[in-house]
């Protein structure tokens, strides 16, 4: 999501699942929705049947999504930016962009500072020592009033569109084919399909997932496509959008609530050491509009922050103590992400680790390093409904988990939790719907809910601190905990906390009583920065109001059957279903596509089938941009300083790659990616590991859970790798034959599935073979024992998010004999 927010203002899927049916072209790239999101993918089929849409798939493997596609193009893993930059070049060269949209709704015409440049693979300001950029030149030229200078004629050599044109000039069809291995004719056919969606009444939707995020340049993969969608005028419209198909059932919710090292609820940032006071923290978060009259909604940031602090610390957060700002932990690093956590563990810098419904031994890169790290902990707490590998990392189960328990001093707690069917609560789906669910039965045996367990730990800690004192107990002692049953808070009470309430009687601007003390808020517009409102997650405000639990709504009525269903559950923000929907209409307020309008200006206000993502009475003539979270009000083709490796995407090779970077050999891989020395020492070379591997998921399994479910364990019982026929012949590997797959970091022995679905690609005139490694097995559950794909994967992440590079790395494969049973 670290690419959608810098581009559009919010890091979330823009449209709904059902809205996919409105597309004219569905592009699936960096994902395999037919297998990974089957019931959502049904809307792609609906688009094909009802809207005569074309489905286009670009993927290293001929996936099950490709099997129902109108057009398929192969690509080498880790080269999507080159492919998509080639498309941008094509669209600009053929002038196949939606001009009026690009001119009015993107920063194409804004003028960039003179000092900004790009040379030999690096943008201005690179420091090799710190592997990071001084980004001060990555911004607009401002006028005397602090507004960005603009040239609507696009003649200025430094306006964004011209810089972009120059930047992508290198990505010719020849170059794309040389880097990606995609045949030129196929690439050009893809370009033509994209270009056909430039007319105002045509929409392309893009469905993507981990196939884009799990790269050292993951965030920029997504950004490149987001830029294409802006150029084609496909954001905010029916059947358009950047649809990040998220993984776990509440991964969107946990992101929204900020359960990430550097985050707080509602996309507020955890403070850093350089922000020792509330005022210093707020200084960079004033979000003064960069063009006259823009909404720049984060101007309300202080209201969101103060209301959060009131929700978390209640009466203990006061104006005098700056709303308990000092109690928030401050970060001395950009983040303590998972790769860093296991680096610290291996260095002996960590004592304890709690895994709540998380199985890092199988899920994190370089299993050997993960196992070693866990072995150095003093204690490990695992809360899970299932018997996970992580909780048994110390057990010697043979080659799949070699360990010497007597040498491992870690205390391990395995705590049984209830599962989805045994609790009440809400989950946020990919398209931001908060849906409530109900408990059907108690958990088995002595299993308890995560809420009960976390509360139990909290109360014990608080009692210990009250009795013994200890390191800075104030935040813990003052944590707000006003629940009917303090030992087991009711999910509805927690949901109301997040929605927010008035803390005193509040009058409106005219002095009339608007809210009484204790009243649940209707939405985030009622939040205040004077400590009179509380809200634990401002973007969820409106989910549980005085009218009841909006997340439990079940009216599936769908105006014009356009895929909005506005009264089913509740969507953040403010029940808007299509983000940036102001952009579905032209500057005058008429729908670009009269057949599928979302909101339109009726002369007095915005009306339509969705809640306007815009001031409801803001006149078109006011010139307020549709991207209301951005200070410019515009979608960003140029990302300013919001990305680690550059305001424009650039092709960098994966850290393990069979190929040089033909664009700039001296800068091969992401120059801003953080790489720990011990991880770098574990990168293999193409001489030793000549084949490109990519991990993936099967439709019969969900991560490492479903091997515990009998039917799924029967459907896909054992670990395998997928190898193309040409390579199998070359290596003498038979269908179903045993193979030894190795990377610099580990070995997996399993059976080979020899397939027509992966064909060698000609990369820079050399045949390059790709191997598919599905990831679902381990040593607990009902399926056969396996190693797990992450035995092989490298420990390096994206420069913005530190999401590991699971999708492109190097292996060798050799035939071997079946292991002795």
């Amino acid at each position, binding site marked *: 999501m670290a690419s959608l927010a810098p581009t559009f203002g919010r890091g979330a899927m823009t449209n709904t699942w059902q809205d996919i049916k409105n597309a004219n072209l569905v592009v699936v790239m960096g994902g395999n929705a037919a297998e990974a999101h089957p019931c959502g993918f*049904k809307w792609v089929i609906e688009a094909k049947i009802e809207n005569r849409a074309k489905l286009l798939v670009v993927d290293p493997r001929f996936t099950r999504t490709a099997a129902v596609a109108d057009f398929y193009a192969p690509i080498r893993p880790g080269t999507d930016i080159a492919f998509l930059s080639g498309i941008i070049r094509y669209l600009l060269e053929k002038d196949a962009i939606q001009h009026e949209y690009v001119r009015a709704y993107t920063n194409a015409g804004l003028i960039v500072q003179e000092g900004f440049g790009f040379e030999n693979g690096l943008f201005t300001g690179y420091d090799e020592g710190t592997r990071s950029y001084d980004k001060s030149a990555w911004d607009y030229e401002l006028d005397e009033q602090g507004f960005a200078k603009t040239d609507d004629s696009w003649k200025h050599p430094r306006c964004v569109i011209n810089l972009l044109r120059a930047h992508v000039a290198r990505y010719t069809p020849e170059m794309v084919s040389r880097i990606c291995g995609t045949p030129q004719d196929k690439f050009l056919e893809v370009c033509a399909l994209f270009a056909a969606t430039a007319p105002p009444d045509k929409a392309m939707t893009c469905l993507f997932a981990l196939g884009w995020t799990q790269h050292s340049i993951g965030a920029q993969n997504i950004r490149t496509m987001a830029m294409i969608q802006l150029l084609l005028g496909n954001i905010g419209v029916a059947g358009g959008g950047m649809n990040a198909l998220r993984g776990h059932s509440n991964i969107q919710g946990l992101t929204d609530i900020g359960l990430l090292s550097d985050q707080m609820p509602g996309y507020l940032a955890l403070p850093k050491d350089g922000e020792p006071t509330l005022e210093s923290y707020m200084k960079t978060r004033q979000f003064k509009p960069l063009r006259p009259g823009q909404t720049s909604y984060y101007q309300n940031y202080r209201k969101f922050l103060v209301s959060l602090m009131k929700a978390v610390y209640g009466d203990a957060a006061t104006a005098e103590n700056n709303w308990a700002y000092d109690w928030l932990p401050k*970060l001395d690093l950009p983040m303590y992400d998972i790769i860093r956590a296991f680096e610290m563990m291996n260095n002996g810098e960590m004592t304890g680790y709690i895994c709540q419904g998380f199985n890092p031994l199988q899920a994190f890169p370089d299993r050997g390093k993960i196992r070693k790290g866990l072995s150095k902990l003093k204690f490990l707490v695992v809360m899970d409904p299932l018997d996970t590998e992580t909780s048994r990392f110390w057990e010697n189960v043979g080659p799949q988990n070699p360990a010497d328990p007597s040498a491992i001093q870690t205390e391990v707690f395995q705590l049984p939790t209830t599962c989805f*069917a045994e609790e009440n609560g809400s989950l946020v789906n990919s398209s931001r719907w908060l849906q409530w669910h109900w408990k059907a039965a*108690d958990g088995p045996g002595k299993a308890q809910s995560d809420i009960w367990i976390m509360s139990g730990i909290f109360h014990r800690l608080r009692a210990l601190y009250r009795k013994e004192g200890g390191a800075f107990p104030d935040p*813990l002692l003052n944590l707000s905990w006003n629940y009917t049953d303090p030992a087991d808070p009711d999910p509805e009470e927690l949901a109301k906390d997040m929605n927010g309430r008035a803390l005193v009687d509040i009058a409106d601007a005219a002095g009339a009583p608007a809210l009484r003390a204790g009243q649940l808020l209707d939405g985030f517009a009622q939040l205040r920065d004077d400590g009179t409102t509380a809200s634990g997650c401002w973007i969820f405000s409106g989910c549980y109001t005085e009218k009841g639990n909006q997340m439990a709504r079940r009216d599936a009525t769908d105006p014009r059957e356009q895929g909005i269903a506005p009264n089913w559950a509740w969507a953040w923000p403010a029940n808007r279903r299509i983000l940036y929907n102001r952009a579905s209409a032209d500057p005058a307020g008429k729908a670009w596509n009269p057949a599928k309008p979302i909101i339109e200006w009726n002369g007095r206000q915005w009306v339509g089938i969705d809640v306007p993502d815009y001031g409801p009475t803001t006149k078109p003539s006011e010139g307020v941009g549709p991207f209301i979270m951005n200070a410019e009000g515009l979608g960003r083709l140029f990302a300013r300083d919001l990305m680690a490796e550059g305001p424009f995407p650039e092709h960098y090779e994966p850290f393990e790659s069979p190929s040089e970077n033909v664009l700039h050999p001296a800068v091969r891989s992401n120059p801003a990616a953080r790489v720990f020395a011990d991880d770098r020492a574990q990168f293999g070379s193409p001489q030793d590991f000549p084949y490109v591997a990519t991990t993936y998921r099967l439709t019969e399994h969900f991560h490492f859970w479903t091997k515990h479910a009998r039917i799924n364990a029967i459907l896909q019982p054992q670990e395998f790798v997928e190898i193309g026929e040409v390579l199998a012949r070359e290596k003498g590997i038979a269908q179903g034959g045993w193979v030894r797959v190795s990377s610099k970091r580990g070995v997996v022995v399993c059976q080979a599935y020899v397939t027509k679905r992966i064909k060698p690609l000609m990369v820079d005139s050399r045949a390059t073979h790709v191997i598919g490694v599905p990831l679902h097995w381990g040593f607990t559950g009902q399926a056969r024992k396996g190693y797990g794909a992450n035995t092989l994967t490298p420990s390096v992440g994206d420069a913005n998010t530190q999401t590991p590079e699971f999708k492109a790395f190097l292996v060798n494969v050799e035939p071997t004999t079946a292991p002795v049973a």
Partner: protein
Amino acid sequence: MELTRRGFVRVTGAGLAASSLGALGFGPAQEALAAAVRPFKLTHATETRNTCTYCSVACGILVYSMGDRAKNARSNIIHIEGDPDHPVNRGTLCPKGSALLDIVHAPTRLTAPKYRAPGTDTFKEVSWDFALDRIARLLKDDRDKNFIARNAAGTTVNRWTSTGMLAASASSSETAYLTWKVARSLGMVVFDNQARV
């Protein structure tokens, strides 16, 4: 007559549907057949609305359990199927969702707290009190020892880096919010969820 698909199943399952079957265009033969079918077993079950626990499509599901939620009755989930009224999945489920019953009743579901002592090669069953008391003690000892109130420059930073946590992105938002409160009030910064991978 308007019927949702679920309503249709109910009505026909309960064997009360002669007239509505007729309205839907079924002939007399089918009516007779429907009347002869043993009442659908799920009509006796308690129906609970829930959401599939796997991916972010978030398909609506109906969970059927035996037991009428009386105080001394323990519910047992016997069947899970797609919710036909749900606007996204419209009753369908994928190979994972169709097998949800098997994950609820997986033989490897955990049923009691267990503890593995340093250097040993087995888990031993323990009480909740033992587990949570010991965890609180370990957390506090480490926090008291390694909490960083001020950095080298003397700035108040109040962070704790030597114990970390991974939160569960299949848990509810309400669980997540409570978890965030507890973790951050301790000053924890080594803190992530599956969105990181």
